[in-house]
Every structure is written in structure tokens, then in C-alpha cells.
């Protein structure tokens, strides 16, 4: 267990670099990081559900200017790790719900930690400015790349705190009454709806958007009446939105 947690801290720390410091290739997005960690720990299903749910919830919480959004990577990796390590052999839906609920407690801590790291990094800049002569190139490179270590350590330390604490919380959860487990199973089913609501809230000024309705009708008709495969239905809704928008632009 201890080795697994250390492994999570290392892998999670490396994944977290993608979030700000390296490239932004989106490996750190919950929809990728969750399933990846689930696959590593042997519970891909938990990773997929946690990843997709947190992706929908946090996708439009974006870093603009000095605003540092909640670290959804840490939430996804921690929740998946807690679910997989706390329930070897596959976490039931109630456990996945509990793990997702635990991420609400992590949000504020990740934002605070990110703020502290970025304050610390200001010292790095000041350290290079005073350097003169041949040393400057090496000092600039060393100082700049030391930021990678700082970002890595931030994530790793948080995993070393969150994952064992979460596993302990999950042990308590296992002793809770059946009603609490049923509530958590239902909670998971509500969360993708919350994710959709958050996206609609940010993407549209209307509560009932025409394009959302057209996607809804297309999916309901094609999926439920004509029993088209789900991936085909997703493609059809994409096409409806795409061509509808182009038609509106031209009109």
C-alpha cells in the first residue's frame, strides 16, 4: 500500500506537470488522467467514470490572467486512486460517489497550494536578474527548469496527503448505513448532469438553448427509436451542431 501511494505521488506529479509547466498536451485533464491512473491501479471503470464526470464539471474553470482554477488533475487522480486502492477488484458506484464527494474537500487546498507555488516562483526570477557575465545562461536555464521540480513536488506532496486520508475516509464509509451508500450511488448519477449544467451555464446565455435541444432530439430519436450505436449518435449530434451553426452563420 505504501509503495502504491508513493508510486501514485510520482506518476501523479509527472502528470501534473502537463497542467501548467510543460506543454499543456492535456494528459492532465481528468478524462485522461483518471482512466490512466485507473488502468495503472487495475480499476479502469472507476477511472473512466471519475474522469468523465470531473471533466464535465471543471472543463470551463480556466486559468485566465492571475486566476488559478481548482486542480482537477489532483481531484481525478486522487479520487481514482482512493477508489482503486480502497476497493481492490473494482469499486462499486457508491464508493466512486464517495470518492467524488471527497474531491470537494481537495479543491480549496489545491488552489492554495498553487498560489503558494506561484509566489515562490517569483523568487526564482529575482535570483536570475542579479547575475552577470558568462554565468547568466546557465543560471537562467537552471532557475527556469527548477520550476518543474517545484510544480512536481507540489502535486506529489498533495497526493501523499490526500490518498492515505481518502483511503482512511473510505474505511469509515464502508461502516456507514446502507442509506448512505444508496445516496452516494445516486449522487454519482447526478454529477454528469451538474457537469452539463455548468457547461451550458458558461456556453449559452439562454437557459434553453436551441442547439442543445436539437442535439437532445437527435440523440433521443436516433438512440432510442432507431437504436443507433452510441458512438454514431455522438457523431450525429456533432454534425447537427456543426452544420446548424454554419447554417446560422451564413444566414
Amino acid at each position, binding site marked *: 500500500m505504501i509503495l502504491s501511494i508513493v508510486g501514485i505521488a510520482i506518476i501523479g506529479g509527472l502528470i501534473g506537470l502537463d497542467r*501548467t509547466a*510543460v506543454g499543456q498536451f*492535456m*494528459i492532465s*485533464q481528468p478524462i485522461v488522467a483518471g*482512466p*490512466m491512473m485507473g488502468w495503472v491501479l487495475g480499476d*479502469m471503470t472507476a477511472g473512466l*467514470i471519475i474522469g*468523465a464526470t470531473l*471533466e*464535465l464539471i471543471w472543463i*470551463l474553470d*480556466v486559468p485566465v490572467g*492571475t486566476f488559478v482554477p481548482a486542480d482537477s488533475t489532483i481531484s481525478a487522480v486522487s479520487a481514482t486512486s482512493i477508489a482503486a486502492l480502497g476497493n481492490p477488484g473494482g469499486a462499486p458506484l457508491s464508493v466512486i460517489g464517495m470518492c467524488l*464527494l471527497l474531491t*470537494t474537500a481537495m479543491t480549496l487546498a489545491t488552489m492554495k497550494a498553487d*498560489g503558494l507555488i506561484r509566489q515562490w516562483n*517569483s523568487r526564482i*526570477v529575482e535570483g536570475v*536578474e542579479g547575475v552577470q557575465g558568462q554565468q*547568466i545562461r546557465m543560471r*537562467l*536555464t537552471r532557475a*527556469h527548469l*527548477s*520550476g518543474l521540480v*517545484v*510544480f512536481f513536488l507540489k502535486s506529489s506532496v498533495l497526493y501523499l496527503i490526500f490518498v492515505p486520508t481518502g483511503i482512511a475516509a473510505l474505511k469509515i464509509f464502508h461502516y456507514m448505513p446502507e442509506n*448512505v451508500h*444508496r*445516496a*452516494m450511488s445516486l*449522487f*454519482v*448519477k447526478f454529477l454528469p*448532469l*451538474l457537469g452539463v*449544467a455548468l457547461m*451550458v*451555464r*458558461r*456556453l449559452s446565455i439562454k437557459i434553453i438553448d436551441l*442547439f*442543445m435541444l*436539437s*442535439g*437532445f*432530439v*437527435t*440523440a*433521443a430519436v436516433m438512440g*432510442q427509436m432507431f437504436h443507433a450505436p452510441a*458512438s454514431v*449518435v*455522438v457523431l450525429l*449530434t*456533432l454534425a447537427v*451542431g456543426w452544420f446548424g451553426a454554419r447554417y446560422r*452563420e451564413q444566414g
Partner: protein
Amino acid sequence: MSKDNKEIGTIDLLRVFARGLLIQASWSFERMQSLGFAYAIEPVLRKLYPVQAEYESRLKLHMGYFNTQPYLASFILGAVVRLEQDRALGIKTDADVQGLKSSLMAPLGALGDSFFWGSFKPLVAVTAAALVMTGSWWAPLLFLVLYNIGHLGLRVSVLFRGYETGGDAVDLMARYRFTSWARLFKVTSLAVLGGLLGMMPLWRTEFRNEGAMPGIIEALAGMMIVLVLVEILRRGGSPVKVMLGLAAVCLVLAYGGVI
């Protein structure tokens, strides 16, 4: 110094591109991407300014405050490489270089945030999420491939465009049409979100309520819940507060014997 030594080739630009991937490695509140910008452009400065004192002063100049959207920073990097090259040849001045950086970073920051974070990423992510919710385990891979083809392609392309045009923002806007693509992606995302709700009865087996209610009623119930949640969010609910509220509602329903 001969003019030949001040030639900037594709390899030089690709080196700047590769270093530009780390532009936020030491991101700070005070100077933001300042060290990252200097780090990315350093190999070009070394090539253009062989005299140590001049190289040092140029490098320090680029350690000043800088912040923009990290992908579109490539355009500014390309443009600054061009202007530094012209400056080394005596065509441009310090003011031109500094003026370009400070005039482009804020508008490109806003443009990049709106396009990449606000429309392109949500569209690819919501499509992948819809596929995951309906049982496709490979959707995260599709997300990574689609997103990075678009993102890396644009990032390389705008770097070279920035170099070729010397930072012509009007050309950038006309060529890439970021704002109209952003509108298209946002609207398409909304259609996929609607589709995700319309497919509720086809969601992963873990989410299904087999036989509890007809499929279309389940989808309509999902839509109603979303509309209520949108209204709550419009009245100032944060994601965390609403999550906690939903957990409380679920507990009430469980203890009330409804589920």
C-alpha cells in the same frame, strides 16, 4: 559581423518552439511567463549577439513581465525572433521589439483563452465525455489525439507565421479566424451536451435504471434536472457548493425512502 551569421533557419525556430513548450515552467504571480520567454528565445539571442555584453542585455530585457495564452505565445516568440534578427541587422530598434511584445500579449491572451480554453478544448472534451458515458473506453485516447493534432499544428504554424509576418496580428486574425471557429465550436459543444442528455438511457450500465421509467421520460427528467441546476448556478451557486447540495439531497432521498 557578417550578415550570414544572423540568418535564422527552420532548426532555430523549431528550437524556440520546443523551448516554448516550457514557457510556464517557472510561472509566477509577479512576472508570470517572463523567465519562460527568455528561456525560449535564448538560443536565437546567442546566435544573433555573439558579443557577451549585448547578448546579456538582450536576455535581461526579455526577462521583463510577460503573459499571454501559452499556445499563442508561439506567435509572439516567432515575431520577436524576427524583430531581434532585424534589430541585429540594424533595421529595427529596441522600442520595436518591446512595443510588439507589450502590444500583442494581452489581446492574444484573451483570444487564446477564448478559443483554446473556452471553445476548442470543451468541444473535444465533451465529445470524449459523451463517448465515455456511453461506454467507449477509448474515448480518452481520441481526446488526446484530436486535441493535440489541432493544438500542436496551430502552435507550430503560428510560430512560423509570427516569424514570417513579424507579428502582424491582423494577418493572424484573418488567416486563422479564431473568433468564428470559437463560435462554431461553442455551439457544437451545446449540441453534443444536448445529445448526452438525449442518450441518458444509453449511458454506461452503472448509470442505468433498467425498467425504472421509459427511456424518453428518463432523458426528459435529466434535461429538467439540468435546467434546474443551470438556474441555481445562475443565481451564484459554485460547483463545489452545488456538489455538496446534491449530496445532501441524495441523503434526504435515501433516508426518506424515495430511493
